[in-house]
């Protein structure tokens, strides 16, 4: 024992010390993260290990806090939109939509039909990219290196498609209050039409290579049970909730925009384990494609342009009041609450990140599992750390 070991630094920071207080005999306290390969960013989890079994776990957040909510109070109403593209790099369009939807609600703007359909198409395409990213990264967490490359092969095509009407490839901020930034061109629609059959052909390959794989199934089945009761307690939404057997999807439960016109299913699984969440997401990809197909069919007969006439300028002044709008993001219910005091900047912007609630359930779900399972559970929650920390 050197002097260093007895010094203050060796005792760890506030969180470790707090955690250390309830330590059992013969256990090991381990910091997973903030730099750990499978926390996808800078999430830190303090775990107490008995052998390889997790006795307690506690996520420590805040390493990627960028004050998006506070920034909302200093930006103009329109100027806050680019922030929405950065909250969640996985499914930024859901956030775009939630914010624009809230402001539209506040200002009483009717979005033209065509713009709504385009929003649906793009958001669903974005959901596909989000799920593909999760899929690849999750399998990577479980130790297979190749599937992520195949997933990115398809994801790259989607990005090429989305690049045309948005001019970006990752942090989309193409939504505007009243519609969209740009219209799609014919080439883009053609590419989408070509992509869907291609992707349908790829899905069986994914199934054979990964979903059916004996090792993978043994790794994720019956691991990390987050049942309905837990979902209610922690406020889990999205695939976590649907994996627990609740067919709750904002697109169906509180249909916003034109979602009530589409015919799609809400995949659910009753197993409530990591495999359930996995299968829900995989099934959701097919449903997203169905929605896109229907939306593309409706597109030529849709009224209006890609943005409402006389769209508000970025320096708009919505009337005094407040509004809440929520959409179904790749990870769950994305909600934005805005308060206006009638000035050029929002009085308050509150972001409801689904990942935050989903992560809260981790500590309970991971208790008593092996450390490898903890990684599998963490991945199955589909965490995007920037969204959790905001």
């Amino acid at each position, binding site marked *: 024992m050197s002097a260093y070991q007895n010094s203050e630094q060796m005792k760890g920071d506030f969180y470790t010390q707090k955690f250390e207080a309830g330590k059992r005999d013969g256990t090991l306290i381990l910091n997973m993260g903030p730099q750990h390969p499978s926390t996808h960013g800078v999430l830190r989890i303090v775990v107490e290990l008995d052998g390889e079994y997790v006795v307690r776990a506690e996520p420590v957040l805040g390493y990627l806090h960028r004050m998006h909510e506070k920034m909302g109070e200093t*930006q*103009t109403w*329109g*100027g*806050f*939109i*680019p922030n929405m*593209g*950065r909250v969640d790099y996985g499914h930024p369009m859901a956030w775009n939509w939630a914010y624009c939807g809230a402001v539209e609600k506040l200002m009483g703007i009717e979005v033209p039909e065509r713009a709504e359909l385009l929003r649906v198409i793009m958001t669903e395409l974005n959901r596909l990219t989000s799920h593909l990213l999760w899929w690849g990264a999750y399998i990577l967490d479980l130790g297979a290196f*190749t599937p992520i490359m*195949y997933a990115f*092969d398809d994801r790259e095509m989607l990005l*090429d498609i989305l*690049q*045309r009407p*948005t*001019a*970006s490839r990752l*942090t989309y*901020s*193409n939504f*505007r209050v009243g519609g969209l*930034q*740009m219209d799609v061109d014919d080439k883009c629609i053609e590419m989408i039409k070509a992509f869907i059959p291609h992707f349908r052909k790829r899905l069986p*390959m994914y199934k*054979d*290579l*990964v979903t*059916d*794989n*004996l*090792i993978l*199934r043994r790794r994720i089945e019956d691991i990390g049970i987050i049942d309905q009761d837990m979902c209610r307690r922690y406020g889990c939404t999205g695939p976590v909730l649907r994996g627990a057997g609740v067919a709750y999807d904002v697109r169906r439960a509180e249909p916003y925009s034109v979602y009530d016109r589409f015919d799609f299913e809400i995949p659910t699984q009753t197993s409530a384990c990591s495999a359930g969440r996995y299968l829900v997401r995989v099934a959701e990809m097919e449903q997203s494609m169905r929605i896109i197909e229907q939306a593309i069919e409706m597109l030529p007969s849709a009224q209006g342009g890609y943005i409402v006439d006389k769209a508000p*300028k*970025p*320096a708009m002044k919505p009337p005094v009041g407040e509004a809440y709008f929520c959409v179904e993001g790749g990870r769950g219910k994305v909600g934005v609450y805005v308060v206006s005091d009638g000035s050029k900047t929002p009085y308050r912007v509150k972001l409801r990140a689904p990942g935050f609630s989903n992560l809260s359930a981790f500590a309970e779900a991971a208790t008593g599992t092996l450390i490898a399972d903890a990684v599998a559970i963490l991945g199955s929650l589909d965490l995007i750390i920037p969204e959790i920390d905001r």
Partner: protein
Amino acid sequence: MNTFRKHVIQPIIDCWSLIVGLKITGKYFCKPLITVHYPREVIDSENLSTYGGHVELIGKPKDPATPKCISCMMCVTNCPSGCLTVVKSKAPKPTADQEAAWKAAEEAGEKVEKPKAPKNPAKFIYDYTKCSLCGTCIENCPAKSLRFSNNIYWVATSRAEMKIDLLARLKGQAAEVSAPAHAPKSEASAPAEKEA
């Protein structure tokens, strides 16, 4: 018997999935590569044409070296990140003779035709480090003088280089277009070109 089936027979049957997996990776092993092998290959220009790089100015159709910009400052005020700096041109300084002539005319009660300041901006500086590529400036430009460049090969080694003088860039582009002989392989030389 059921437990025997579940714990012994089923795993053996499931092992087939491992062979299926090997078959798939084996199949892809034999297929051609799909990555773009930069710098031996470059991304096709079709894809590149929709790429949204940093913001750049658009020249007048007849005079590609001068931007369409009318220095209205819409882009500057609306940019959420404050990355644009536009300096309006001043009117040319009148000579002493002109000034005297105007004064005389004014005293005589005539309306003086003073030369107006040119609308073109004198300076158009864009700080790429701050830009969030949101496109607000592009939408709000009344003169349609801004667009995303397709410059995917943009490289800078210092922060100062990230501040782009868009006017100089436009001039450079105009010169390149008007003198194609100097840049025979514009596609290939694009990455190496010193921007701005």
